[in-house]
């Protein structure tokens, strides 16, 4: 089948979507951005294709009558979890190899044995963690290998130190050094191999539910997806390995993406990892004015990342935690780097964890408010996009502040909001082909 791809190479995460010829999203992929943009784009795209294939699989399963709805859903979820598990273990193996290679370095001559034993224990710990995470009913703390493996790594390492093992630093340093190459390599197995490996992970009982499953999987895995055009956008767009005419400015893509998701959108707020954008669009989705933070990354998504790190919890958990707060602490400085220190200070001052976290969310939203005010305020309808839109506490704070100051509003948040830029890009790709705009005619 024919399809289009949009890639948004953000400062924190890289997102890709696959659109069908009707402009519907059929697949989404996300990965963290890294020093190698090509890899990031490739991984995101691969993920998007994976998700597209899973979507097709789901469609096919849906059409079947020999299996109950319940079983079908269970099967799907288990297969997806197992697939992710496989991916994770692949990365973990690569991490292990890199660590072992690293330990061969001369400077570890005296500590090699100790560290290598510790590594064994740590990896075992991570594998166990993975076993418990990659089951259908678990909510993952993060989608990314770095985050999941990293926090399990640190936890295990600090246990080891406490029990008289090697210095904490020496182990964490090993992780820091070796996670980079791992992130910059892609999985060597193809979709089909991975899928089949996942298939074999499924418990027997589940497999018996559908006798022809293996065959179906094969078919899906080998189905040809014909990519007509890819358009890239985002912070890293200039570095994308694409021709110039396949690149659009992130502001345009966000504006269009938001307009497509919610056609009545007038104001768009996008809070990403390192930038915040306030965009005004006209009824056709064309950007009329915008403001962006420059020079300072205070109050962007990374800020929440630092806080989650500081608390050693996952990003996903931060919002719900703040939602538990009834009061909030007023926080004025949102320097990302200071976030951790400020958090500790306030804890030491006896303020409640949840209230502080609640205050931090409010602080981010207030910073975004100044950008919004500068770009021309908020006009109904108001669409919130970017990674931070996934965070319920940020959304709550935004709704409160916006309504207090601009009156009652329709606040749109799509489940796909993190993909807004990518959707815009994908749509540009589609328009280029469908409307017959030849490459080069409509530059970014």
């Amino acid at each position, binding site marked *: 089948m024919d399809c289009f791809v949009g890639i948004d190479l953000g*400062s924190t995460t890289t997102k890709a979507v696959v659109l069908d010829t009707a402009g519907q999203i059929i697949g989404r992929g996300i990965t963290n*951005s*890294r*020093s*190698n*943009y*090509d890899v990031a784009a490739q991984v995101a795209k691969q993920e998007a294709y994976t998700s597209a294939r899973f979507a097709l699989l789901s469609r096919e399963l849906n059409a079947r009558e020999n299996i109950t709805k319940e079983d079908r859903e269970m099967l799907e979820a288990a297969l997806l979890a197992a697939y992710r598990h496989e991916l994770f273990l692949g990365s973990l193996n690569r991490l292990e190899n890199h660590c072992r290679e690293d330990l061969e370095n001369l400077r570890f001559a005296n500590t090699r044995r100790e560290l290598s034993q510790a590594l064994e224990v740590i990896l075992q710990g991570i594998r166990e963690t993975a076993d418990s995470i990659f089951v259908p009913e678990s909510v993952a703390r993060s989608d990314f290998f770095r985050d999941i493996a990293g926090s399990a790594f*640190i936890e295990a390492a*600090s246990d080891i130190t406490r029990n008289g093992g090697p210095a*904490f*630093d020496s182990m*964490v*340093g090993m992780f*820091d*050094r*070796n*996670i*980079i*190459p791992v992130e910059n390599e892609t999985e060597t197995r193809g979709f089909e191999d991975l899928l089949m490996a996942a298939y074999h992970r499924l418990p027997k009982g589940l497999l018996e539910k559908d006798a022809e499953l293996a065959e179906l999987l094969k078919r899906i895995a080998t189905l040809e997806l014909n990519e007509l055009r890819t358009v890239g956008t985002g*912070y*890293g767009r200039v*570095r994308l390995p694409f021709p110039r005419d396949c690149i659009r400015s992130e502001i345009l893509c966000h504006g269009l993406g938001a307009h497509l998701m919610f056609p009545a959108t007038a104001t768009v707020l996008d809070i990403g990892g*390192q930038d915040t954008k306030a965009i005004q669009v006209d009824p056709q989705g064309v950007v009329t004015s915008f403001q962006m933070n420059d*020079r*300072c*990354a205070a109050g*962007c998504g*990374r800020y929440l990342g630092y806080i989650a*790190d*500081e608390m*050693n919890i996952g990003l996903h958990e931060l919002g719900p935690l703040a939602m538990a707060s009834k009061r909030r602490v007023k926080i004025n*400085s949102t*320097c*990302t*780097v*200071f976030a*951790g*220190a400020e958090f*500790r200070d306030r804890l*030491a001052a006896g303020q409640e964890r949840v209230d502080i976290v609640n205050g931090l969310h409010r602080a981010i939203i207030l910073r975004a408010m100044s950008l919004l005010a500068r770009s021309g305020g908020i006009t109904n309808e108001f669409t919130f996009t970017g990674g931070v839109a996934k965070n319920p506490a940020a959304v709550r704070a935004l709704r409160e502040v916006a309504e207090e100051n601009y009156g009652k509003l329709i606040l749109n948040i799509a489940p796909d909001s993190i993909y807004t830029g990518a959707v815009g890009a994908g749509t540009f790709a589609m328009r280029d082909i469908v409307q017959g705009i030849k490459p080069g005619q409509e530059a970014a």
Partner: protein
Amino acid sequence: MTLTAGVDVGSGAVKVAIMRGGGGNEELLATCLERIRRRNVLDVVDESFEAALREAGVRRDELDYIATSGEGDLIPWRTGHFYGMTTHSRGALFIAPEARGAIDIGALHTRAMRFTNEGRVEKYQMTSQCASGSGQFLENIARYLGVSIEEIGPLSLQSDEPEKCSSICAVLAETDVINMVSRGISTPNILRGIHNSMAVRIAGLVRAIKSEGMILMTGGLARDAGLIAAVQEKLQDGKSPVEVKGHELSVHAGAIGAALWGAFRHYKLHPGELSGGGT
């Protein structure tokens, strides 16, 4: 003979020093450094304090004065607290008696101070609400580059064509670095570029306090030979007659200084002990 301890609680690490003696005749018995890394600070303090005592062969109850510095005023069992620039100056003077100034670069802040031959602080300057150019910043960069912090200095020194780094923000600089990497700039050149941009700010602080003569780098980044070289170079540009050095013990300057001031206060509070103690 007095026994004192200095505990310097930073935002990145806890440093402890145990010292014997006072009144110009001091001896450093032990030091200990423990990075915090998301752990409970007070636990880390306890751990490192015990380790330092063990190394010094001293019992807790033998100590005459426990002085804290940095964020150490949270520690309930301290005798007294001295502020960072007070302790870093004194510590710098102990480590390098010819020093008349110190630059302390810690995890979040950078400060420069000028002091007398008695360790009295005369003038000082700190960076403000922005963490650009701090240790945390460099640590993030190192992480992106996949090098350990110990490697930063030696690598930076190998640079042949330092890259210009414009971003002043610690967070945005990470992105800059990603860009540099994908443009194929070598790690040494990236690191030196960042060192250079940090050095501009640091040199600004040093000029603001009008420090002259020998300046000791203290704090964690004093181990970073690349940064020292960059600062030295920037200060030469500005024609200020200064010389910048690092030292093994630099990272402990705050703890050492605290222990020394602890002894000083102890004698002030218990006069007569100095002569009685016999050095």
